[in-house]
């Protein structure tokens, strides 16, 4: 699944606002088909990092490239190579899902069959609905589709599961997994450590604009244990989320919003 081919290359990337350093010379690489997580407390510089690679913010110093294309000098070419899932996806109202897909495809210079894309995420029967008629989870799935219509090389997700119920979150994880199987690299930020542990191949942990650790979740945990760390409480064999999912079912709560 994950190849050795480097797709995203970030080299001593920096950004400061009014003298405050937001991102402080960070470097990392992301491989083809890899799910790469960026973790860190609020204000650590995660979103700024993403926005610089997404061409939304200018780069103060350092460089970023995707498939050898420089982000700073060729922003429009880069935008054609990436898909972006914002924190809270918004779409214009009174517009059918099929029309929105057409719009986004056309923005990437593509013409597609909207229905096949909708069916991929089980929204085929909602083709003629408006976005405002979708539930939160459905909206997330729809947003992902619109970000992938042009088959990008890299897919960015900024806190994609914030505010979703456990079922919708698990469904989104499945979607991210499937996306990676198509050879698309994924860079995501999250505040849920469990999400990072199950989903990400590697994670970078940021604090004060710097990457303070970068490895697979397993290795990071091993390293911590090696330093003699011990949890104060014995780990339960099941947690409350397991109870919740067992009681309410693992399938998506589609019936809730029609």
């Amino acid at each position, binding site marked *: 699944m994950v190849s050795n081919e480097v797709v995203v290359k970030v080299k001593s990337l920096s950004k400061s606002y009014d003298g405050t350093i937001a991102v402080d010379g960070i470097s990392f690489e992301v491989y083809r088909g890899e799910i790469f997580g960026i973790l860190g407390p609020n204000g650590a510089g995660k979103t700024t990092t993403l926005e610089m690679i997404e061409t939304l913010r200018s780069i103060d110093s350092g460089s970023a490239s995707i498939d050898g294309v420089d982000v700073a000098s060729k922003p429009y070419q880069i935008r054609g190579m*990436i898909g972006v899932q*914002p924190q809270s*996806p*918004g779409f214009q*109202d009174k517009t059918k899902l099929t029309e929105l897909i057409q719009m986004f495809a*056309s*923005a990437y210079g593509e*013409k597609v069959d909207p229905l096949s894309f909708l069916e991929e995420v089980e929204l085929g029967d909602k083709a003629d609905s408006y976005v405002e008629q979708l539930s939160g989870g459905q909206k997330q799935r729809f947003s992902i589709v619109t970000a992938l219509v042009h088959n990008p090389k890299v897919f960015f997700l900024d806190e994609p599961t914030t505010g979703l119920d456990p079922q919708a979150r698990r469904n989104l994880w499945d979607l991210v997994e499937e996306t990676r199987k198509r050879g698309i690299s994924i860079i995501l930020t999250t505040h849920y450590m469990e999400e990072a542990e199950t989903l990400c191949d590697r994670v970078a942990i940021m604090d004060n604009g710097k990457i303070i650790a970068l490895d697979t979740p397993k290795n990071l945990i091993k390293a911590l244990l090696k330093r003699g760390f011990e949890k104060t409480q014995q780990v339960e064999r099941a947690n409350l989320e397991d109870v919740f999912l067992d009681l309410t079912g693992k399938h998506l709560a589609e019936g809730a919003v029609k």
Partner: protein
Amino acid sequence: MNFALAILVLVLIVFRIGRRLYKAKYTVVKKVSQPTPWQTKLYTVWVFFVVNLKRVFRDRLALFFTFLFPLIFLFVFGSLSSNNQISLRIGLINNSSTAFAKSYVANLEHNRLFKINKGVATLAQANQSMSRGEIDATVELPTSFGTLVNGVPTGQAIIHYTHNNDQAEQTLASLMQTQFNVINAHYVKTSQPLKITSQVSNQHSLTAFDYTFTGLLGFSILGVGIFGPMNVFPELKKMGILRRLHTTPLRVWQFFLSNMLGQAVTGLLSLGVMLLIAVLVYHIKIVGNLAELSLFLILGIILILGIGLALGGWAKNERQVAPLGNIIVFPMMFLTGVFFPRFLMPQWLQTITNYVPLTPVIDGSRLILTEGKSILDLGPQLAVMGIWMVIIYAIAFRVFRWE
């Protein structure tokens, strides 16, 4: 309707171009030939235009403000300016019971120059009404009015008026004197060496409504061009829709161009409905060529839309844009002939307001619509519009923000 036909032809042309782009893109799958980058970019504009146009027609509020709102103004201003004939409001007190007095009263009642207030029957009531300004003057026919002397009616009518209404008195007196002269001439034969004859000229002069109507067209263009994007763009920013589009290769000019097409079509439809009502209800005379008028109005809409794109594109939220929008829109309403004709202004103000962006739009559409000018005759108007278009769009592109 001619106008509807003109719009239809225009829409068909635009659609044909769009279809060709659509097909050009479609052949990529089948043929080896790649669409040129330009075709692809215009295809994007086309899709955005079509989807957003459909959206307007699904939005009841947008429909109301685009089509019904200008009509309300049309009806209000139309009914205000339709009774534009000079008429004196007078009270009439007839104390005489002679046959002549009766027939004279009937004559006054049918004369369109006078509007007789029936509520006035006594001199006291007349004075009260005059002091309130409800009537301009009062005609009193004394008891002796119309008594026959040697078979000829005689008498004296009295005109009552207030100090600050002597103009009404003069008009009324001369009108009545003319009437009496005709009647006198009927009874007492004298030769009249000096006479007046009137001839109607073939020229059709502009009515007040002609000015009002093109002013209202300008008002409607302000609504479509400025208030449209000024309200919609900040909303799109708030919901992160523009931010999301910013992550795609979409260019600002593509986004602007799709907006121009959309507003041109909805604006022209809205103006067409107004014209239809003006023709059917207020019998406005269309002298000029409607296709040329449509073309000119589209230019006008695109020019004014530039202001809307600049305001909406710059603003981060509604609160930021509302005051600035009002500062720009309200002076334009009063300086460009939207609500009253500019020829009422002092000369220096007319000279200055010649260069306000909306002025040439209103003047030009009046020149085509009611004076039958060709768009080729509108050099001065088109020059001012062209210069503004360059300035306004240069600003709009410069200040545009995706979030």
